[in-house]
């Protein structure tokens, strides 16, 4: 197993094409996973000889920029790529243009196609990597769950743009997808470990969802959801939020979906995006009637520390469990969190770098994060952070 990391400046398409030509190897990689802002992904999709770099691609647009262990002088138009050369492993990718109505069926079909592409139909991969447009996450995970259960970890990030204007995109090596998804199945010859968590603290303010529909939260404890949310903010000495888009203002105070596993409480974050005049709220992930929500609290320091902690834990576990040292890593950091700490983003990168030592890594800022929670269930959340570590062979 060999993993190469590239961090290419994609500002000028011609120069970018030259970079692409310069990193070609004798044989294409089995898989490439990439993050870059919209321009970088579009330049990648327009470049030639892409399939000579890797036979399959999962390139996801990242908010503002992507990051890697190589620090960038400016924060824009970079494409961060991990190339997986693994002759003993198997990799397959499938993609689909999809919609909220067909996503469950489409994700099942695509997963089957990806397994076929890896020449491992019917077999359980070590990891499923996914990238999708906002809104399709829960359906995608449901489709995957219907085919393979929760028996395999599913990680990934929702494609993002710079201003939630809907320009996010993905590229699978052949086509650019704006509403749909890409699924990759990984059967690597070396161990993988991961951790998925949030960087927020719970508070004592909780309520039960008494009415919700998909991502629209109507009432909490039979009161308009926005009213309850603003009451909590007041009690925490925070300004209340007016009707309209609230994504940026609510970043440090999302809602936490309480997940109980053997009496142990875990929280999956849901990011408020919009407050309607009727007091209902639009969230960035689904909530369900009867679910307990808690008011979460975060701050810059917590978020900056968080990526390092999550990465360190995942790497340490890789060593403890598989006697394997990190070979490369992918870190997913919520775009909302990044926008909240924008000026300190480089500290996040440095924290990950510190946790991994000289190990190459790439990362993206996404509009939703998917991962396997501590209870062994794959979920979609907001404002989450995940680290996936690819290890050296432990033989």
């Amino acid at each position, binding site marked *: 197993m060999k993993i190469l990391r590239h961090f290419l400046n994609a500002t000028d398409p011609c120069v970018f094409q030259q970079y692409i030509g310069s990193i070609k190897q004798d044989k294409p990689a089995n898989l490439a996973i990439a993050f870059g802002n919209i321009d970088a992904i579009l330049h990648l999709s327009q470049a030639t000889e892409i399939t000579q770099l890797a036979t399959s691609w999962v390139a996801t647009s990242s908010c503002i920029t992507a990051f890697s262990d190589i620090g960038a002088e400016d924060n824009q138009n970079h494409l961060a790529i991990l190339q997986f050369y693994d002759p003993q492993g198997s990799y397959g990718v499938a993609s689909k243009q999809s919609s909220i109505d067909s996503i469950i069926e489409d994700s099942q079909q695509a997963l089957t196609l990806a397994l076929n592409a890896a020449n491992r139909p019917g077999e359980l991969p070590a990891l499923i990597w996914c990238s999708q447009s906002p809104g399709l996450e829960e359906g995608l995970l449901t489709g995957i769950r219907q085919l*393979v259960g929760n028996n395999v970890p599913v990680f990934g990030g929702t494609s993002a743009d710079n201003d939630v204007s809907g320009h996010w995109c993905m590229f699978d090596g052949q086509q650019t997808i704006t509403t749909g998804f890409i699924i990759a199945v990984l059967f690597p010859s070396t161990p993988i470990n991961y951790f998925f968590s949030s960087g927020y603290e719970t508070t004592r303010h909780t309520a039960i969802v008494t009415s919700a529909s998909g991502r629209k939260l109507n009432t909490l404890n039979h009161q308009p959801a926005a009213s309850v949310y603003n009451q909590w903010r007041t009690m925490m000495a925070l300004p209340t939020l007016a009707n309209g888009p609230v994504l940026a203002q609510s970043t440090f105070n999302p809602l936490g979906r309480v997940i109980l596993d053997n009496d142990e409480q875990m929280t999956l974050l849901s990011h408020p995006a919009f407050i309607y005049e009727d007091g209902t709220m639009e969230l960035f992930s689904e909530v369900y009637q009867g679910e307990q929500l808690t008011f979460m609290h975060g701050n810059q320091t917590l978020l900056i520390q968080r990526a390092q902690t999550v990465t360190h834990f995942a790497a340490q576990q890789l060593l403890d469990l598989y006697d394997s040292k990190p070979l490369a890593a992918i870190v997913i950091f919520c775009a909302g969190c990044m926008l909240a700490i924008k000026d300190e983003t480089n500290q996040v990168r440095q924290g990950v770098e510190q946790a991994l030592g000289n190990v190459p890594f790439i990362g993206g800022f996404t509009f939703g994060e998917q991962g396997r929670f501590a209870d062994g269930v794959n979920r979609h959340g907001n404002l989450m952070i995940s680290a996936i570590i690819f290890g050296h062979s432990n033989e």
Partner: protein
Amino acid sequence: MSKNEQQHELLMQLKVENQKLLEFKKLNNLMLKTLKAFTNNKEQSTPFRSLFELIAQELKPDVQLLITCNHENDGFFIVSSTDEMLIGRHFQLDDTVNSKPEQSIFSQSTVFFNLNLTPKWPASLKGLLPNAASALIQPVKIASRCYAIVLVINEVNGFDAEAKSVMSNYSSFIASTLTLMEYRHVAAERDTLFAQQKRIEQSMARQGKLAAIGQLAAGVAHELNNPLGFIYSNLNTFELYLKDINTFIMEVCNSHPDSIKLYNKHNLDFILKDSGELISESLEGARRARDIIKNLRNFSHPDENTISTINILELIADTVRIANTHVRKNAKIKISHDLNHAFTQGNATQLSQVILNLINNAQHAIEHQYGLIEISINKFNNWINVEIEDNGCGIDDADIPHIFEPFFTTKEIGQGTGLGLSISRAIIEQHNGCIALVHTGLKGTKFVISLPESNHVRDD
């Protein structure tokens, strides 16, 4: 971060670690129980069954198989299974999907979440396991062979990545344990080989002694032959002289009747008659001594490469005569046939050795004082059959498959070489014949030797 939150964070990490630890607990349980099962179980045929029971406790598969590849036909053989009906069954890989066993799905750790989706699951295995819906395959490689454990559940999504991880880690342990057992087996084989080596050395020493005795016997036979020659010659002459003396005495008695009194007084009638019998018996004794010396010389100067036409009847009679010297202690040898002759082409010394081996074995099997070794000779089509039957203790059932193997013996070390029957079979097969055990039991044992009858001389 608040202390409370730090504790919660730690709790989350511990939760993930706990999941992994549970996985390791399963593994540890398996390993501990396996160690106990393997160390307590002395019979090597049962460890796989113990293994299945342990795996069933942790992973709950519906069916378990232990398979090994059969390189002769690029297929697989089910060594053991929780389903008794499957043990010993063979199955093939599908030609279109798999190429060779060592590159097949059974050579790598794999979980099939839905067997209906894969063309790699062999059709012949599908036939054996029609209800199988998901499977976990774990190869187990030890130095001498490649095995694979196949776990099957009759529902899709039966196994998760943790089950695969448990089996993957467990397989190394199984392989190590099996290797350990194999070492034990090798050590036992080494001990057997040492015992065989000791027997060979003793056999060589004995053959050396026998060769020396043979040379001595040849010398003694040569030296005895001369005095025996003049004893034989003198007795013949003395027999003629006695006839003349007898004639003279009769004539004197006829011409001088007074001498009859003197004749009777000295009991010359008895003396003359008894003298004739004494000479006759002495001549018979001398003839027997001459035959024994002749046989000794034949054994001492083996003509191993000489092929000639042999009358089996004479060869058996000669061999029995030699064997009788030690057999007569506890057994009688009875020869029966209704043939005038039975000719075969071969080496007399070697064939005699075979008959002698069988007689010796028969005698060793007789542990009482009423031993009887019956040798019957008959012909069927163009074959001469020599049956040698004893009324000894018979051969144990467990030993029967091994009696023709070199160095196999039931005698104590130093008492037998274990080569007798194996050499006998080699000799008989060199003569285009065969040797077989007809029956054995508590009432005795019967062997038969069949040799081709020589073409140029026939009984009828």
